[in-house]
């Protein structure tokens, strides 16, 4: 096979027996199982993997894992396409197809590349300053297109995502040597442990050449993993990023599942409540800021080492290593072993110590006390210009400049511990000048930082540190079994000194944030323009604000700011570490809350009957209810008309099962309900019901319904369908918090009872055809009363209440009998013309009757007086919820919105709901209210509407205009008591 010219003949943790074909920017390549997209691209000699955000400069790989700022790709096509993934984190699989983002047609030859020439013209704040007039919003879309990253899929995501809640004693974040040692100690101590690591395999940055407890490092890792995976009290999660720490030690983990075992499950979002947390998340190497430090071929020393050691890729032919610490010497030796010629190690330290002597004795040239001045090259690095650090700060020694040819420049400006979780848990960071890093300082007791995350880079430190942290954490969680002794290894060198940026370089081309194209020059400009707070500088220059959240750039930016403002890093402070640590997909956050599970719908006992009989089911207040019955494919309006006609002229059935049913009993039941209702309930006779409004303490109507008295100390409160849970909770709240002295029991029995409203002039006739011991005659059973008895042998509660204005019986029957009763009523009433009716018909029936529907014909300001019930206030002497608010001057304002009827001048015009009532048809500038319900009434032979209108009750008869979407309708304010105003039909 061709390709893979840069692949080493041996070594690496790739599976050479499994070649995988893939595509990048339309070209076909191949790699091996175990590769990432990045390592496979490098193995195939692809050096330019993306274009910079603002200026479209060619960019190559800088990192080898989550720190990568440049290799941003869009994966796949269609519904599964995923934008803005880091090529360094994309595991290679057969047939994978990726393309670079922010360039066209591809990263190698980008049509936007000439933008680079404008670099001088586009400093920090360029967009804000330039596109001010007339409005930023005019330019924004075009600018976003030119500077965008990937594109979101247009189709719904076909994959599954799952949520998972879990609790544990010790959560260990990071599966490198420190994390493994911590998990081992905590597990052995008997704690419930979860170990999470974001990579496909455990081991972190462990190099093959190391030995732990006498074994090869990878063999040791495998043994630890085996022990953890077989322990009953430990769980190991790989490909799992701990991306955020939330209140009370809730850690969010995003687990990516590997195909094909995942069977369509793509990611799992873990909510882990951890008693103790060990942060062993490692550290990220820093680039060094100098001119043209973004040329392809310049990468972190640790990344170059990873490509060579783990992926068996030679990242270059001739390398120069620029470093301020010991760790890069290991990279040099690894690269040398991989066949890379090491031109020199440039150490910014004047006296690099033992590491340098070891390198020199291995035949490597070490240039101590030099720093990088500028990189040379166009589409790839060709050479590095260095100079000796002079006596005067910011100067190089005369004549010390050297030029070193290379095609790989490895940089190491020190290490930034990944303390994100610790910081999010409100842990404080302190600057350690010796290690040139922000380290965990005082913080929550339950957080334990270990290894490189705590600033300890050497392996022996990681192991002892991690083990101690794991044991401590377990102990804090009361797991105290003997954990044995810590794993050990040889002591190694890990010294470093601070070196951030070369003083003498063209600052406008010395890149600080690769992903957002922020240079040292931008930071200088920000300071010159007097931005001092690090948070302001961050937002002005956008440094650290890209999708990598400044993993490689933040520390350098802080150090440069400190230098520019003549302060120190602790004085500059640091920006906030906000979750997520690494981007999380929206699919993962949505989990299974999509489609039918977006929000749970409730079903009535008649659900299956409705579905089988043509009901059009819709979501009404969380209940799936028949809007109307479609029957033999008749038009919607025809169906609703027929349902209304049956109710007005014969008899109809309505499934009212969702109506709230709350039982209230006890010696103080009447007193309690009298306080809960606006209307007086103390005087309600046993067996009778009373319509009532319920208010909140602001006097606003929150619900209505009929309160029925079953016995002296026993009431049945009926609430609106959507209100049952809310009103029941309100009852309990008042009883527990305000009136614990009242002896009352409340029970929500809504679902125990089915409810069928039998309404229409022949309703009684229909019920009389069933076997019952209840006297249905009007004298014995008047409107607004309730009777308990048996119907067809089943215990029922029948109430004479309704929402249609017709003779109406609401039958409450144990829910399990609802369907049988419904079918019997239909069968017995077939010759009477009985029809089932849906919500739409009911709404029109109650509209023409002039009944208000709380929440439709009232809004968040409506009080009883606004709906024509103000007079009752004077008749009730007792206190009730909301009473005092009704006495406020605002409640007595004459111009309040009041509930009225509205008639269009043209009886054939149905006024649109939401249309505004205006006084003057020409100016249309002041709304006096709006239409809330509206329909064509066949019973009245004209259209009718309800609305809320300013001072409406005093304006009965007044002509107004109703305005909606450019059309104006002449109308009149009327009393809404259109249908059967005397109530003969209701009381029949």
């Amino acid at each position, binding site marked *: 096979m061709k390709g893979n010219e840069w692949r080493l003949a041996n070594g690496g943790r790739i599976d050479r027996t499994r070649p995988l074909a893939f595509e990048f920017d339309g070209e076909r390549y191949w790699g091996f199982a175990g590769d990432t997209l990045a390592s496979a691209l490098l193995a195939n000699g692809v050096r330019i993997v993306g274009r910079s955000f603002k200026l479209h400069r060619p960019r190559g790989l800088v990192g080898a894992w989550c720190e990568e700022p440049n290799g941003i790709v869009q994966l796949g096509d269609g519904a599964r396409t995923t934008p803005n993934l880091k090529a360094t984190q994309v595991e290679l699989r057969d047939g994978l197809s990726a393309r670079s983002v922010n360039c066209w047609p591809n990263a190698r030859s980008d049509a936007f590349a000439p933008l680079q020439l404008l670099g001088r013209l586009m400093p920090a704040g360029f967009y804000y300053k330039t596109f001010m007039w007339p409005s930023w919003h005019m330019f924004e879309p075009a600018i976003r297109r030119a500077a965008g990253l990937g594109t979101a899929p247009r189709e719904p995501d076909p994959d599954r995502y799952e949520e998972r*809640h879990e609790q544990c004693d010790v959560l260990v974040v990071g599966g490198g040597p420190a994390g493994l040692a911590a998990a081992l100690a905590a597990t052995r101590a008997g704690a419930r442990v979860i170990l999470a690591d974001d990579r496909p395999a455990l081991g972190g940055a462990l190099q093959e050449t190391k030995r732990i407890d006498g074994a090869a490092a990878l063999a040791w890792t495998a043994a630890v993993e085996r022990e953890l995976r077989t322990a009953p009290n430990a769980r190991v999660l790989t490909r799992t990023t701990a991306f955020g720490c*939330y*209140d*009370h*030690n*809730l850690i969010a983990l995003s687990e990516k599942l590997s195909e094909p075992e995942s069977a369509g499950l793509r990611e799992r979002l873990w*909510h882990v*409540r951890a008693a103790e947390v060990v942060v062993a998340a490692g550290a990220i190497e820093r680039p060094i800021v100098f001119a043209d430090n973004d040329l392809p071929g310049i990468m972190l020393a640790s990344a170059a080492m990873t490509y060579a050691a783990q992926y068996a890729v030679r990242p270059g032919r001739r390398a120069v290593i620029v470093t301020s610490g010991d760790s890069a010497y290991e990279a040099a030796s690894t690269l040398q072993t991989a066949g890379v010629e090491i031109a020199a190690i440039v150490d910014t330290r004047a006296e690099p110590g033992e590491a340098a002597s070891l390198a020199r004795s291995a035949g490597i040239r070490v240039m101590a006390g030099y720093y990088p001045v500028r990189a040379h090259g166009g589409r790839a690095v060709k050479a590095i210009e260095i100079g000796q650090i002079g006596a005067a700060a910011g100067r190089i020694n005369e004549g010390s400049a050297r030029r070193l040819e290379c095609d790989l420049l490895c940089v190491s400006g020190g290490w930034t511990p990944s303390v994100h979780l610790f910081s999010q848990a*409100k842990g404080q960071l302190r600057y350690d000048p010796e290690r040139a890093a922000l380290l965990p300082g005082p913080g929550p007791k339950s957080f334990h930082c270990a290894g490189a995350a705590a600033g300890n880079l050497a392996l022996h430190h990681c192991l002892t540190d991690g083990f101690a942290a794991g044991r401590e954490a377990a102990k804090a969680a009361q797991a105290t079994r003997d954990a044995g002794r810590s794993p050990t290894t040889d002591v190694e060198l890990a010294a470093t000194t601070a070196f951030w940026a070369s003083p003498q370089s063209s600052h406008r081309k010395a890149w600080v944030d690769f992903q957002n194209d922020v240079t040292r020059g931008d930071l200088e400009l920000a300071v010159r323009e007097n931005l001092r707070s690090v948070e302001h500088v961050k937002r002005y220059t956008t440094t650290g604000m890209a999708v990598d959240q400044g993993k490689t750039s933040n520390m350098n930016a802080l150090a440069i700011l400190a230098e520019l403002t003549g302060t120190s890093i602790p004085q500059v402070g640091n920006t906030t570490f906000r979750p997520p640590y690494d981007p999380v997909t929206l699919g993962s956050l949505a989990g299974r809350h999509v489609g039918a599970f977006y929000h749970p719908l409730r079903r009535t006992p008649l659900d299956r009957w409705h579905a089988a009989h043509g009901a059009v089911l819709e979501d009404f207040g969380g209940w799936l209810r028949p809007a109307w019955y479609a029957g033999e494919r008749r038009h919607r309006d025809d169906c609703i008309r027929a349902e209304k006609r049956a109710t007005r002229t014969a008899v109809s059935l309505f499934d009212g099962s969702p109506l709230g049913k709350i039982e209230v009993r006890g010696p103080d039941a009447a007193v309690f309900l009298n306080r809960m209702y606006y209307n007086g309930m103390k005087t309600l006779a046993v067996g009778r019901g009373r319509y009532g409004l319920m208010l909140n*303490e*602001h006097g606003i109507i929150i619900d209505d319904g009929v309160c029925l008295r079953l016995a002296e100390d026993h009431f049945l409160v009926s609430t609106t369908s959507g209100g049952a849970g809310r009103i029941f*909770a309100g009852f*309990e*709240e008042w009883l*527990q*918090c*305000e009136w*614990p002295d009242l002896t009352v029991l409340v029970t929500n029995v809504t679902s125990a009872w089915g409810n069928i409203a039998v309404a229409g002039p022949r309703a009684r006739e229909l019920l009389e055809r069933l076997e019952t011991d209840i006297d249905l005659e009007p004298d014995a059973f008047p409107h607004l009363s309730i009777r308990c008895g048996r119907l067809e042998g089943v215990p029922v509660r029948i109430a004479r209440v309704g929402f249609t204005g017709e003779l109406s019986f609401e039958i409450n029957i144990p829910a399990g009998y609802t369907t049988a009763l419904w079918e019997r009523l239909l069968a017995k009433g077939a010759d009477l013309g009985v029809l089932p009716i849906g919500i739409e018909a009911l709404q029109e029936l109650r509209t023409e009757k002039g009944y208000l529907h709380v929440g439709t014909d009232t809004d968040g300001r409506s009080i009883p007086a606004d709906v024509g019930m103000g007079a009752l206030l004077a008749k009730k002497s007792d*206190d009730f919820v909301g*009473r*005092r*608010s009704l*006495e*406020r*001057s605002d409640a007595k304002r004459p111009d309040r919105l009041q509930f009225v009827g509205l008639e269009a001048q043209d009886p054939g015009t149905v006024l649109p709901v939401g249309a505004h009532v205006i006084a003057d048809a020409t100016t249309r500038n002041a709304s006096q209210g709006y239409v809330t319900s509206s329909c064509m009434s066949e019973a009245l032979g004209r259209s009718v509407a309800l609305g809320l209108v300013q001072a409406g009750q005093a304006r009965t008869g007044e002509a107004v205009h109703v305005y909606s979407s450019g059309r104006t309708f002449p109308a009149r304010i009327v009393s809404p008591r259109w249908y059967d105003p005397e109530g003969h039909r209701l009381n029949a």
Partner: protein
Amino acid sequence: MLQITCPCCGPRDEPEFRWGGEVPLVRPGPPEQVSDEAWAEYLFTRDNPKGFVRERWLHALGCRQWFVVVRSTVTHEIRATTRLTDTLPEALT
């Protein structure tokens, strides 16, 4: 997401609960003796301190009991939770 220890049910996650505002909140009455100012104070004015505050929470998805939580509005640290009927040591508030 807070973890709140319900006096009845033990530690549970925040979505099981409903917040009910600062306590004590004294409902003034009888209504005819309450001034507009006093009523507005009851409806709208809260201390909203920076630091520990006593508030009531409902374990809505559990035992449906209202109870008292002493919570820091700065750190969300919960110092104590007690039943409504229990008296809370002064030191905790």
